[in-house]
């Protein structure tokens, strides 16, 4: 399986932010397929192939989840906890990407098992820079788990 085939799951409720994030990934030459879901419940449905995503059963899980914290229905921390509690998703790297730089959000994210915490800057040029670094680290440098462990 090709690394580039493995997808990224972007959990983002704001269409503007989603569009900008996708643009930033594109400008950072991240060619991996990116799936977009709009809230926490959808994110878990996608990961565990439930509800609207039941047809995903048997398909490979994303190799990276980019997670916003403030989400409708189930928030980012809830998604993170649910992922870390399930063997299937326990080891998938999660990058929390949010507006807030409040200490409690940072601490809570790491405490719930986030691998990275990135604050979305207002300046889009900086945003692209951050996305580029994220892509380089998590998609190129980071050695993914052997495939039989990821299952």
């Amino acid at each position, binding site marked *: 399986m090709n690394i580039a085939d493995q997808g990224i799951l972007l959990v983002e409720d704001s269409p503007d932010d989603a569009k*900008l994030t996708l643009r930033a990934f594109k400008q950072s030459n991240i060619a991996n397929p990116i799936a977009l879901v709009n809230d926490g419940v959808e994110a878990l449905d996608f990961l565990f192939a439930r509800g609207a995503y039941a047809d995903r059963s048997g398909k490979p899980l994303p190799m990276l989840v980019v997670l916003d914290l403030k989400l409708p229905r189930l928030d980012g921390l809830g998604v993170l906890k649910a992922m870390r509690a399930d063997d299937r998703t326990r080891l998938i790297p999660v990058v929390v990407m949010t507006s*807030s730089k*409040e200490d409690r959000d940072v601490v809570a994210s790491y405490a719930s098992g986030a691998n990275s915490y990135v604050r979305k800057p*207002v*300046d889009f040029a900086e*945003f692209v820079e951050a996305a580029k670094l994220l892509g380089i680290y998590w998609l190129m440098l980071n050695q993914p788990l052997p495939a039989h462990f990821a299952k």
Partner: protein
Amino acid sequence: MLAAVGVIASAVWSTYAEVEDARRQRRDASDLARRLTSLKLVTFEYALIRQERALAQYREISNRIDGMFAASRFQGPAQQEIVARLRSGRTLANQIFDELAAAFQGETPNRADLEPSRNFEAQLLSRLSILQQDNLSDVFRLTDLTTEQSNAAQQRLLVVILSGLALIALITLGVSWLIHRDVLVPVARLQQAAQQVAAGNWTTEFGAGGSDEIGQLTRDLGRMTQALRDALARVERSNQELAALNRELEAFSYSVSHDLRAPLRSMDGFSLALLEDYGVRLDDEGKDFLRRIRAASQRMGHLIDDMLSLSQVTRSELRPEPVDLGEMARGIAEALGQRNEGRKVHWQIDDRLTVRADQALIHIAMQNLLDNAWKFTSRTPEATIRVGMREQDGRQAYFVADNGAGFDMAYADKLFDAFQRLHHAGDFPGTGIGLAIVQRVLQRHDGAVWAEAAQGKGATFFFTIGQPEHEHRRPGHPAG
């Protein structure tokens, strides 16, 4: 109590007077007995030697006895009776003595008459002798009676003193019981309640109390506690309101942090996208408009960030520890130099600038002060920034001094207000929150910050940390 002592004293006094009176009567009786004995002896002497001297003596003693009878104040019916008998006995005795004296003087040397007159004289003398003996017996009886009277009076005195003592003991017992019931017990209760209140048990009831001073005090203390309780409840309420406000503020900043920045990101991001993707279709003015939109979004982003850090400085918990400001300043200076490699700034940072402060907060303050110094010396050819300490009014004032742009002291009072700027953004960029954050940090350390500056000649920012060890005197105070 005082009345009881008075009664006892007067009882003792009157009994004592009785004793004295009885003693005097006995003395009088003894005197009488002695004189009557003398009179008897003189009578015999006269009967034997028949001289004028003895007669005169008899008269003198007899007169004195009469005088004593007149002066004597024997009391009691038995005594009065004896005295009356003695008086009549005395009168009779004097009559017999007079007859006898007349018989002795009328005696003639005539032998023939001698015999019958001698018989008469012997008869008289014998009667007188018996009478005198009777009188003497009466006086002795009188003496006995007065002795008994005196003894009885002394016993009464003893009884009066003892019962007086018993009465005083009884009264003392009663008074101390009253003190115990009306003073000691309420005071102990009061003390217990006061201790309860002091221990923080504000619901302690002091009770109604009696009508005396202690009761009044009890009610006053009860009222005082009630007033304190009310005040405490009010403070509690405002504390709750404050806590609620604080929570609200926290929620507000959290929401600001998340929600207010998102639209800015869109404005900036899509402006840039427009520039990148459709730039060729825009003329220079169109591109300039888009750049202005981006600049404004980014400026507002910084304003929001600074506002949030100001509120964070206010909300975060204070953890004081020893901090070396010199070491901290050197670290910040190094970072500034790395970020702006083109600039040459001469740093003078003193050693031994250790204070007790919250490491993170004081770092924010130092960062802001040094950022400012760095920023406002950007147009100064020989830029120098000094960090040190000097004694001022007995306090240690730390300072950050630069020889940069400075400012007009007329605006110094606006310096530490949030969003107040003394320079145009085009000259020196900034949001105008940095010094407000510095002031907030130092206020949280019970310190203060102030500045001295002159336009074009640099600025010095002084600050103190913690309360002074002791209040220094204010010079020129009329009382001082």
